[in-house]
Each structure stands twice: as C-alpha cells, then as structure tokens.
C-alpha cells in the first residue's frame, strides 16, 4: 500500500517536469510557426495586418536576398560540416566530446595564414594561386593532424577507461591550452589572409544564383574533401577498421585490429578535415585569431548532434542545415516577430537549434551510430 502511494507521488512529480518540457516544446514550435506564417503572408501580401502585427515596418525579402542567404548558409554550413566530422568520428570511437577539436580547426586556419602570407610576400600567391592553395591546404592538414594526434597521445590515451566526464573536462583544458599557446606564439592581433585573385573571387551567376567565387571555391573544396573522406571510411581497410572500433572496441581487438592505431587514425582524419575547414574559413572570412576555433567548434558539435552523432553523412547534412538555419532563421522567423537587430542573434539561433534537436529528437535527424556502451 505504502509503496503504491510512493510510486504515484513520484510519478506525479515526474509528470510536472514533463508537462513543463511539453510546454517549452509547444511554445518554441508556436513561435517558429507564427514567425514563418507571418513571413509567408508578408511575401504574398505586404500590407495585411497579420504580417504587420509584430513588426510594422517589415519589408520581407526579395528572391535574390533569399538566395543570397541560402548560399551563405550553405557555404558556412559546409565548413561546420567539415569540423563536425571530427567530433562525430571521435564520439563514435571513444564516446566523448573532444572539446578541443575547434582548436584543431583554428590551428589549420593559423597555419594557412602564415603560409599564405609568405606566399604573397614573394609574389607566388598572385602568379600561381592554385598551387599555393594546394600547398596551404596540405600544410594546414599536416599541422592540424599533428595537433590532433598529439592531443590524443598526451591527454586522452591515459584516460581511455575513466568515467565519461573526465576526458570531456580534459579536452576543455586542452582547448584552453592550445588557444593560449597560439596567443603566446603569434600574439593577440587579428591576422588577415591575403585577398583571393580577382579572376577567382568575382561574382558569378549559376542557375540564377548570384554566387561569389570565394563561396563557390569553399563549396567545391568541401565537397571534394567529403568525397575523399567517404572513400577512406567506406572503401579502404583503415576505414573498415575505424567502423569496427566504433562498433565495439573489444571485439575489434579480438578480430586482430590494432585499436590504438585505429583511434590515432580517427583523430588524424578528423584533424585533417578540420584543417581543410580552417583554410576555407580563412579564405572566406579572411581574419583569424586565437579565439577563432571556439564558436565554430561548439556549432560544429551542434551540427554533429543535429545530424546524429557517429553518422558521417549526417554530420555533413547537419552542418549544412545548421548553417542555413543560422543564416535564414533570423530574417525569416525573428524579423517578422518584431525582434530588432536580428543579426546579433545568429549565434543564439544556433544554440537554440541544439536545444530544439535535443528536446525533440536527441538521436539527431539522421540517427546516431554509436556502440551500445556509448549510448547509455
């Protein structure tokens, strides 16, 4: 009898939290739907009262503006995707968030800056841009991979069997360390990449989309690296070993796979992708500091969660969805709701996406791929 009353009491309290969560869910969805409806109505008929309800001087977006937002979201999202791959792969294999992965990306961007500046100083940048680009990408890959492998060896390997939060806290420390080490080495000033040559960066029109050459370059490089990664993971023996280790470390070891080496490879591949991402970031935004890695890092983790952690295709898709949401949502949902200064809330939108995904579908849009022990 007494146990019965105890369980019902506990169940009632649980329900209070659940009711509250449902309320949050409904509230957020309602906000999004109202914002969207107001936006659509505005596009159809600018003078209707519903569109003017919260924001009397909303102007809506022209088709070109919308396409512009879409393109910028896409190119930024593909960068998030490249970084997210590293988070996703490491989480798949070791089951912890490598918080310092954003710093690996920053190291790539920094390397690219130093190399490209030297190239520009001796004139090679203008004369033979493609070669320079390949060289700086190669160097960024080299340094990022080195950083990632080193941090695995020094900080994470000794913690392989410790409680789950310990490696996460360690990675926060590693991230702090790398940031401030780079600050010490290269100083606090913001470093700016040299301009791309005119023939590449000029505006082009593809399928009625006005797209800057830089963004096109970013999209192409991201796509190429994604294909290379797909080939490595799905078609080579190393990739097979990586997937096996992600599935179950002990059984993989029994099958004759060198688990340690595979984990190092995973870090290396993730680091290489982050290095490429770093170069693309530098080419697109042209400025790098020691703090460059932090926000993109957290957002890329969001992208990995959105796509379903451990799922590589999902990471890329998650990156692109997050990038698009970040660039479109402020104008489409927040502006019609009458929020001023929406561009400041870009980062807040990205974090809200993370909360939304975890509230509605914690396993991500495309399903997570984790071993049974990591899922707990």
């Amino acid at each position: 009898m007494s146990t019965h009353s105890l369980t019902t009491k506990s169940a009632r309290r649980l329900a209070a939290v659940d009711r509250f969560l449902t309320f949050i869910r409904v509230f957020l969805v309602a906000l999004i739907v109202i914002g969207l409806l107001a936006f659509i109505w505005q596009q159809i008929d600018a003078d209707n009262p519903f569109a003017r309800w919260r924001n009397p001087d909303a102007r809506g977006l022209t088709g070109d503006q919308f396409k512009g937002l879409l393109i910028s979201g896409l190119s930024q999202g593909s960068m998030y995707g490249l970084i997210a791959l590293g988070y996703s792969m490491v989480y798949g294999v070791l089951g912890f968030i490598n918080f310092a992965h954003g710093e690996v990306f920053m190291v790539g961007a920094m390397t690219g800056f130093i190399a490209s500046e030297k190239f520009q100083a001796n004139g090679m940048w203008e004369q033979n841009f493609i070669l320079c680009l390949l060289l700086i990408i190669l160097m960024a890959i080299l340094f990022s991979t080195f950083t990632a492998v080193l941090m695995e060896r020094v900080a994470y390997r000794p913690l392989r069997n410790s409680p789950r939060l310990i490696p996460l806290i360690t990675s926060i420390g590693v991230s702090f360390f790398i940031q401030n080490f780079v600050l010490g080495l290269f100083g606090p000033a913001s470093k700016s990449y040299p301009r791309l040559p005119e023939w590449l960066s000029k505006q082009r029109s593809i399928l009625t989309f006005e797209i800057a050459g830089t963004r096109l370059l970013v999209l192409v490089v991201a796509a190429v690296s994604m294909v290379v990664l797909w080939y490595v993971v799905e078609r080579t023996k190393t990739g097979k070993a990586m997937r096996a280790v992600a599935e179950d470390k002990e059984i993989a070891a029994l099958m004759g796979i060198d688990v340690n080496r595979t984990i190092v490879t995973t870090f290396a591949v993730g680091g290489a992708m982050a290095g490429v991402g770093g170069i693309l970031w530098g080419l697109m935004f042209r400025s790098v500091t020691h703090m460059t890695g932090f926000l993109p890092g957290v957002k890329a983790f969001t992208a990995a969660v959105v796509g379903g952690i451990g799922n590589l295709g999902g990471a890329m898709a998650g990156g692109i969805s997050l990038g698009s949401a970040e660039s479109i949502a402020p104008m489409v949902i927040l502006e019609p709701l009458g929020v001023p200064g929406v561009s400041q809330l870009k980062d807040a939108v990205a974090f809200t996406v993370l909360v939304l995904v975890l509230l509605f579908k914690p396993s991500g849009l495309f399903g997570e791929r984790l071993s049974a022990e990591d899922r707990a």
Partner: protein
Amino acid sequence: MNERAMDLPRSAVDQNWPHVLRWGLVCGLVLVSLCLVGMPVELDKRAIIERHLSLGYLFVLLVPIAIGWVSSTLLVLEGVENRRQGLYDLVTGLVVGLIGGGVLSLLMVALDNWNLRDPLVNWSPQLFRFLTYENGMGFGAAAWLCTGALLGLAGAALHVVPSVVRRTTAFVVFGLFFLSVLEAAISDLSEGFGLESLTDWLYAKKGGLTVTSTIVVGLVIGAASMVTRGRVKAATNRYRDMEGAERQKASMILFVVVAVLCIVLPMFLGKIMNELLANVGIFLLLALGLNIVVGLAGLLDLGYVAFFAVGGYTTAVLTSPNSPWFAPELHFGVALVFVVIAAGLTGLLIGAPVIRMRGDYLAIVTLGFGEIIRLLFMSDWLGPYFGGAQGITNIPGVDLGFATVKGTDPRSVFYLVLVFCAIAIYTSWRLQASRLGRAWMAVREDEQVAEAMGINTVNAKLMAFVVGAVLASFSGAVLAAKVGSIFPTSFMILVSIIILVVVIVGGMGNIAGVLVGSFVLIGVLGGPKQPGLLQEFQNYKLLIYGILLVFMMLKRPEGLVPSARRSRELHQDEFLQDAWLQGDKLESEEEEGTVVTATVSTGEVGGAEE
C-alpha cells in the same frame, strides 16, 4: 630480457637510451615553447631573490628539474621486487637535462642567425639576451648545457637522497617561493601592524627577497621542517580520530580562530589586498555553488556564468536609478529577495530541459544556454530593458545604515562577501550530509541505481541546479554592488571555465578543496579580469589554467584536497586491485581455514535441499 633488466641492478651507462632521448627531447621542446610563448622575458620583471633570480629564470630552471624527476621515476609494480634507485637514475636525469640544455642552445643559435619575428612575436633580441645572460653566444650555450645537466641531475637526485633531505629541501624551496610570491600581502600586513622594519629586512627595494633574508629564512624553515616532522600529520590524525564532545570542542576552537582571523586581518590590510580578498570571495562563492552542481550532483554545467549574470542584472535593474526600463531603486537587501527568486526560476528553466540528457550533452547544452543568456543581454532586442552593450551603470552600494558597502572601499566589500561565503559554506556543509545531499551523491555515482533505490533523480538534479543558481546569483549581486556597473562582457564563458578549474583543482565535492582552490588560483594567479598576487602572470594565467586542468585530470582527478568518497569513486580500479592483492595474501594465510568453511557451507546447502 626486459624482465631481467627490471630486476637486476644495471650499470650506470647501460641506459635505456630511447627512453632517455625521448625525455631529453621533451625537456628541450618544453623549454623552447616556454621561451617562444614569451613567458621568461615577461616574467623576468618579477624578482624572486633580489637581482639574482627572477620568476622568468625560475620557470625555465624548473623545467629540467621536473623532467629529470619524471624521467627517472621508477614504475613501482605491486608484488615485484624493485631495484634500489641510485647512480643509474642520476645518469638518466643528467643526460635528459643535458639534451634539454642542448636544444635550448640550438634555439639560441637560431635566434642569432635567423629572424622569424614575423609570425613568432616573441622571437626577439630580448629573448636572446635573456638566454645568454647578456654574455654572448658561447657563454650562454655553455651555461645552459651545464645548468641543464645539473638541474636534471638534481631532479633525479630527489629519488635517490634520503626522504629527510628531500622533505627539507622541498619545504625550504616552496617556503621561500611562497614568501616571495606573497611579498605584496606580507609587506601590506606588516605595515598594518607597524612592522615596516621587518619588510625592509625581508624584501629588497626593487622587489624580491634579499640574499641575507633568503639564507636566514631558508635555515629557519629547514630547521622547522626537521622539528615538525611527523607531528602535523599526527595532529591531524588525532583530530580526525576524535569523537563526540571532544571533537566538537576542537572544531569550535578551530572555527573561532578562523572566524577571528577573517574578521580581524582585513583591518590591517591595505586597499589592494582587500580588493584581492574581495575578488577571491566573489569567486569562492561561485565555486561553492558550482561545487554543488558538479561536485555533489555530478552535472557538468559549463554555462554556470548564466546564473552569475542573472544575479548581477537583477540587482542592477532593481537598485540602479539608471536602469533603462524599470527602476524601482530598491535597497540591496530587498532586491536580494528578488535575486533569489529570479535565479531559482532560471535554474529551473535551464535545468528542466537538460535534466534527462546524457552527461556530456548536458555540458554542451548548458554552455549554449550560458552563451544565449549573454547574447540576449547584449542584443538590441533586450537593450531597452537591460541596456545592451552599454550595460547598466550607477548601481548604488549596499547601505547598511552605519556604513555603505561599495567598490571604493574594498574592505567593506570583503566583509559583505564574507557573510555570503559563510552562508554558502554552512549551507553546502549541511546539505552534504542531508537527505538531498546523499541523493545528489547517489545520482552522481550511478543514476540508474539511485533511481532504483527510490530516489527521485529528477527532483534531486533540479534542486542541484536551483541551489547552485542561487549561490551564483549572490555572487553576481555582490559583483554588481562592488563594481557599480554591469556589462555583458563580464559574463563570458571564460568565467564558467575558470570556476570549473578552481573546483577541480581544489577537489570536487569538498568544501575545503574549493576554499584552497579559489585562494591558490584566484588569489595568486587571478580571475578572468582581476589580477592576482602575481600580476606578471596576467597574460599567461589562462595558459596555466589549461595546463592545470589537463594535469589534474591525468594525475589527480580528485583534486588537491580530495573528498574521500569522490576519490574512492575515481580510483575504484586501484582499490579493487588492492583488495584483490590483499585477498590473495589472506587466502594463502588461511588456506586450511577456507577448506573447513567450504565443507561446512556445502553441507548446509545440502541440508537445505533435503
């Protein structure tokens, strides 16, 4: 072959050369990166012993000692006969230090011949002068080779010398170091007591200990350490073993002493030291709150600064006449009630969505919330209510009738913080042993088991968030009253992480640990914006925080002052292994006995079956 080598005493030159080479290169790399980060040159400004030793040199000289010590550490395995450490290890340390010094000399050659100033900002003539002792290339190289080798040898020698010597040296070195670090505090205090002559004798005019005082104080500390050997430990053990009324009495005396010290000392301290203490108090308050969330309940909250911000902003809006939207200009005490309510609600609001998430997702989502709250306070959207990037200014101090607590009088701020800290310490102490506290620890150790034991885990976690939030909001309120204005930039994610480092370095889940952590880290190195005793560290403290965090996680995850339960959890494997080894021993001793009990038990089972 390897096994044989482990057991037999090896000849001193028959080294494990790859091992030695690796550690030598590590030593060299650490030295070079230290130089290129700019630490030695920057810290050279702070003298430790007059002009003979600066903090910069100290840091560089410490590296070969530390690495010499690490590289010659013998892996002690349970149940294996260990060789005695001796000449062999000394040679290891010597060679490691020598290689380190060699790498540093190579850096000097490079500094002399190439100019890499463009990407590397610290590639400077000052660094070259620092490394060569301003005596030219050849002298510098020779000096570093010799010092490297000697210091490596010294590091290795720590394993070899008898423990008395090791203990005494450690006490003397650390004692002198702390005396020098605490220079500002000690001279301030002795001036307060009217003992300027002591300060003049102890410290040189340009900073740092004088040579005579170094020698005298060193001798005194050495003698003291010889005398007190084993007594301090015995005293603490006696205190620990006390029970009932006796223990209560001892605790009471201890409490009164600490309380009197806390109340009386600031009266003799100057403005700067009080400012420092007030800062330590503000961060201590935050750390005590985070200790409940992370240390007791095991919820890694990386957005803890959000509650700090809510406390600060609520106070600012309610008390400042400059609040842009709603300015009731309440008294601090009245505002505090609303601060508690606002923080509690925020705790629930942030806690509820994250409570069911996996531990690591919880960390990132709370980090997201922390950023969202800062971005909202900064945005134009909420600008009309909270002042946006301009913040809220002109927050009045706390009017107590007989005095006003405000930033210009740091002593009063310290007393205010002291009151809040006392409340926080008392609450955390009482909560720890309460039903709720035990529920938190159960959730931390194993959530599913806790739930099966009838603990309402959802409520327990929510309560942790709420209590943590309220403590952080107190801290925010004090900050608002102290600084007099509040800006979104005071609430960067950095703050959360620094508090996390304080809690972890001190010892998660232990109030004493948190106290030690905040005094050592915030007091000596400084907070996110506030300088500590070693102001020269301003540019490097975050680097050091990062290293500390990694180091503690790798070597001592339970912190400097561990909580017994927490360290048992973290070292469960080792405990189990020890138990297993001891079990083995017991088994072999009681072999005959077990046979008897075994037969008895089978007999019993058989009887039950019939």
